[in-house]
């Protein structure tokens, strides 16, 4: 593969395309709502209408408005249809030229769409994720070509550093710094002189589906990001660790890897350079803790997914003792756009300390559920009220949960908080990987705290004592509070346990497990107190 060939593929693809493209979303949400049948009916309807010469039906990745699926959009007219039934397929074809249609029309100018800024999701809902030609036609793999031919690894790392990109897995560690550490790390003295790149697609946060959507909608974007990273740090082997719960993402990734290999975009001497890079998929098997870097490594090595103390960090000693770069799916998806459009462009988006965009999965008690990509610094209020449209029945929003089991609940009174790493931490939550679950008055915050604690208890790997037993004890106390059996002293005990588990647990799972409790205690303490056992215990009266 050389540049002429790459451009040839893009040109042939553009020439192949028909004037009108009907995009039928085939990501999980729409898939489950009958998108495949709809796609078949649309194809038949195009055929029946005799328009097959100018119209094509394309199964595309996530359009984002998941709660309103199955979704269909039309290019170039921009028409959008929601909750389309297979029976409406002929109607949609008939309406291509703007005529009336029984199918529900969506508003492509709705704030849900217009307030977004698409960087990593720019191809989502526009290309067929199962065809590499579509990705290449959208400019794909040009960034990889450019770095391999025009930039030194140090220059690539410098660009990523200047872009201000921070880890999208939740903790927000500066990506450039991580790459630089792996690049200069020599590994263990006796270790093999290899380096690895790992893509963390173990999106375990319940209520989050950004990474699934990116992998399902634009798998090559992630592969290209990994390849650029591998070049920058000097790795020749990559692993893509994907949750076993995401069969569609795994299937599309496998296809993407095969296609990339076939086109010489993975493998040996990529773009006729000395750069070799292979990627293997590793399928997770249902363990939230494997999102933690050292547990992830253990799991890729085929062991129990248990974390180990850091340092040494994976950047110095990771897979099989070799320096290993671990970034999350969305982080890798940002790489090619940064290389293509420049670090300065990227750094111009967002806030001073949190640059760029962030993808959020907006779910829960909200009118517009789905996937959004917004510039950092946007306020929670804008997301919940403008993009999300408030609750479906108009009742007041009580809180929004970010960061999943490691995050916290932010009350409506703090909705003017800008969405950036530091501001969310300051109000007791975290950016997290991008799950954003909206809660209304019907949601009990104590029960939410118990829900998350049950999650952490079940997902604790059992290695260190505070997390293994502490989460069980915290869950027990939350259970007693929910059941109206607890005394005020037990809230104090709960708080002490939170402190213990946070300060003494071995890994991030345990250290952050108390967060949902602490944040709800901070903002909704009255809900805890309302549930305490009220009758004064005679024998304990002073």
């Amino acid at each position, binding site marked *: 593969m050389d540049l002429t060939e790459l451009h040839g593929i893009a040109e042939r693809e553009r020439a192949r395309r028909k004037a009108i493209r009907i995009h039928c979303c085939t990501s999980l949400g729409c898939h489950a709502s009958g998108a495949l049948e709809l796609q078949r009916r649309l194809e038949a309807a195009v055929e029946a209408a005799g328009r097959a010469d100018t119209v094509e039906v394309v199964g595309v990745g996530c359009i984002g408005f998941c709660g309103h699926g199955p979704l269909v959009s039309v290019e170039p007219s921009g028409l959008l249809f929601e909750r389309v039934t297979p029976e409406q397929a002929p109607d949609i074809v008939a309406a291509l030229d703007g005529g009336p249609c029984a199918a529900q029309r969506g508003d492509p100018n709705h704030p849900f769409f217009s307030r977004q800024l698409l960087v990593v999701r720019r191809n989502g809902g526009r290309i067929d994720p199962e065809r590499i030609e579509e990705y290449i036609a959208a400019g794909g793999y040009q960034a990889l070509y450019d770095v391999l031919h025009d930039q030194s690894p140090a220059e690539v790392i410098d660009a990523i550093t200047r872009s201000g990109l921070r880890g999208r897995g939740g903790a927000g560690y500066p990506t450039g710094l991580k790459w630089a550490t792996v690049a200069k790390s020599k590994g263990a003295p006796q270790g093999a002189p290899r380096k690895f790149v790992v893509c963390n697609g173990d999106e375990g946060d319940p209520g989050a589906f950004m990474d699934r959507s990116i992998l399902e909608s634009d798998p090559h974007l992630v592969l290209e990001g990994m390849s650029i990273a591998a070049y920058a740090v000097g790795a020749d082997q990559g692993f893509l660790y994907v949750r076993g719960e995401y069969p569609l993402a795994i299937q599309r990734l496998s296809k993407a890897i095969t296609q990339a290999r076939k086109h010489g975009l993975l493998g040996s001497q990529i773009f006729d350079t000395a750069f070799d890079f292979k990627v293997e998929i590793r399928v997770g098997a249902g363990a939230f803790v494997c999102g933690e870097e050292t547990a992830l490594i253990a799991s890729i090595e085929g062991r129990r997914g248990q974390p180990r103390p850091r340092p040494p960090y994976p950047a110095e000693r990771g897979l099989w003792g070799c320096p290993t770069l671990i970034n999350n799916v969305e982080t890798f998806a940002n790489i090619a756009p940064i290389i293509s459009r420049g670090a300065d462009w990227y750094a111009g988006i967002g806030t001073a300390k949190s640059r760029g965009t962030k993808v959020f999965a907006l779910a829960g008690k909200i009118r517009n559920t789905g996937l959004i990509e917004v510039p950092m610094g946007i306020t929670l209020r804008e997301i919940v009220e403008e993009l999300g449209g408030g609750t479906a029945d108009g009742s007041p929003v009580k809180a929004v949960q970010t960061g999943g089991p490691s995050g916290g609940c932010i009350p409506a009174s703090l909705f003017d908080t800008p969405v950036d790493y530091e501001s969310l931490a300051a109000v007791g939550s975290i950016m997290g990987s991008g799950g954003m679950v909206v809660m209304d008055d019907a949601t009990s915050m104590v029960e939410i705290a118990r829900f998350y604690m049950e999650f952490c208890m079940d997902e604790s790997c059992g290695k260190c004592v505070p997390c293994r037993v502490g989460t069980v004890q915290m869950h027990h106390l939350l259970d007693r509070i929910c059941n109206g059996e607890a005394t005020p002293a037990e809230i104090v005990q709960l708080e002490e346990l939170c402190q213990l588990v946070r300060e003494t647990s071995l890994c991030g799972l345990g250290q952050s497990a108390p967060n949902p409790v602490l944040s709800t205690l901070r903002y909704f303490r009255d809900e805890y107190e309302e549930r305490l056992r009220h009758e004064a215990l005679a024998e304990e*009266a002073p």
Partner: protein
Amino acid sequence: MADKLRLATVWLGGCSGCHMSLLDMDEWLIDLAAVADLVYSPIADHKHYPKNVDLVLVEGAVATNEHLELARKVRQRSRLVVALGDCAVTGNVTAMRNPLGAAATVLQQVYITHGDPRGVLPDDPDIVPRLLDTVVPLHATITVDLFLPGCPPSAPAIRALIEALLKGETPPAASRFG
């Protein structure tokens, strides 16, 4: 003798070994009697737990509804409650039935499954106390002021505790379990 210490000892779910240890204080018991009145104890003949107890040593875990009621009364009527011995402090041997399951399961196993398959379960709440589903240490039911672990705690340990309290001092730190 109004300024004599009003001392009580209570026997909940335990083997009475702690009380044996208490008696093992031997001749010091005579010195103790000079400064304290034993106002309630299984080794003396008292029908009811009295009011205004200064110090009570409680042996045993809380295993039945009767234990629970007595423990609450003890807390109400005593200034200083000491959990005496491992059963009171941890549940110990008395609590070893907990992993078997709730009261009904335990009774079934003991009286029927591993006892007499044609037997009957004891069921006369006025005579036989009702088992709690879980045996718990004393502090799980009432506020406990001091803990003296040991199975049983040694006589010198019990003596050291009482002596310190008589002098108004903080008793020596707890020794070991078992």
